[in-house]
């Protein structure tokens, strides 16, 4: 019985990674506040500018979160520390970042 539970969990985990929207399942789970996600992207854009550079920076941070890589102010980092390393594979992570960027990027909405 115990084995059965373990197998189901494992299958679910793989299924999420391959089939589900990695952004919704992996990011929104914790970062459910939209303002917070918008603010992250704002800070990334302020620091890195172009779409390419922003996505690269997010990817780098997700793979190896460090204080030096973070865009958050030091006070915040002192209190909450850096996040855990993402366990998504590269393709899934990139896809999640693309979705995140497209959702919260306001450049296209400028009139």
């Amino acid at each position: 019985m115990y084995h059965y539970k373990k197998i189901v969990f494992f299958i679910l985990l793989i299924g999420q990674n391959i089939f589900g929207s990695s952004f919704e399942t992996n990011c929104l789970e914790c970062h459910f506040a939209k303002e917070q996600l918008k603010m992250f992207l704002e800070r990334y854009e302020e620091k890195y500018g172009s779409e390419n550079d922003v996505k690269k920076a997010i990817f780098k941070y997700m793979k190896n979160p460090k204080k030096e890589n973070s865009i958050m102010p030091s006070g915040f980092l002192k209190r909450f520390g850096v996040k855990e390393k993402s366990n998504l594979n590269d393709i899934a992570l990139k896809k999640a970042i693309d979705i995140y960027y497209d959702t919260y990027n306001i450049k296209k909405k400028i009139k």
Partner: protein
Amino acid sequence: MHSEKKTITNVLILYLFSTFLLVSMVAFAYFRYEAEIYKNQIKFMSTKKAEQLHIELEKLHKSSDSDLTYPRYSDFESAIYDSNKNLIFSTEANHKKIDFSKELYKEDGFVYFIYSAKPYYLGAKYIVLKQKNISVFKNIGINILLLTLIVLFIIGLTSIFLVKLILKPLRENVNILDKFIKDTTHELNTPVSTILTNIEMIEQLPLDINMKTKLNRIKIASQSISNLYEDLVYITLNHNIQKKNEYVEISKIIEDRIEYFTLMFNSKNIEIVFENNGSMKLFIDKSNITRVVDNLLSNAYKYSKKNSVLKITSTEQLFKICDEGIGMDQSEIARIFERYTRFDTTVGGFGIGYNIIHSIINEYKLNIQINSQKGVGTCITIKK
């Protein structure tokens, strides 16, 4: 007068040219200085505008509104670019390609200013402003050009005045000398003419041989002075007297002058053989061609040996005078037309004869040919 004008022109050209270079350099430096100031002014103004725009972009960047209106200004167009130089937004529909290598540049009458913004609000690293060129700058160029021209004009006038001032004492000296020579020449005329006319009158009288010889010597001497007088008149007054050109038969002139110099040639026992095979007809001033013939004859007389033959030939194309004199070598022939050149200082003269011949021959575009052999003699041919 002629050489003075030339000097004035040369000095003026040299002076004006060097001044022009100097003034141009100053003007150019001034222009660059003004341009730099103008550039900095534009940069300063544009930076202020870009900073204003940057603040507006920050508001837009951080706004939670769904209405995202890009800030627009009436006095300039703007565009924002990300760090990869990709266009994010432009207030113009047809935005031209931007040269990011320069901070400020001009194209098609517009001034483009590229402002590097930080932080990158909306991801924009570059804020590009496009403004109409301000026409003040064009006026700076025109003003400097006008000023340069005015300065050059004033300097030109001053330099003319200066050159005249410097040359004034020199000109006065030359004028005094000229006047002296002219006066002296003029004063020579009357006594020489008087002597020659009186000799001719005395010749009519019955005289003994001894007296006649003495009278001939006086006549020859007077003719020499007369000849010198004519040369001086030509040299000092030639440019001021009016030429009376007419058709002249050269053989007649030669005959006339031979007769005039007969006594002179007789004194050295020189035999004159004149072969008259026709005559050149020239449109020439009579006194000028007489100068040529006189000088040729008097040179032949001066350098001929005693008891020699002087052969003169005249045809329709040329006339030729061949003497049996001391002759010249090639280097001497080359120098013959220089003024004050004399190959034998024991004979009289100033060395101006051939110089006069050369000047007249050049004036009437005649040709002169000199064949000479040292110790044998000289043949001078004058052709049309």
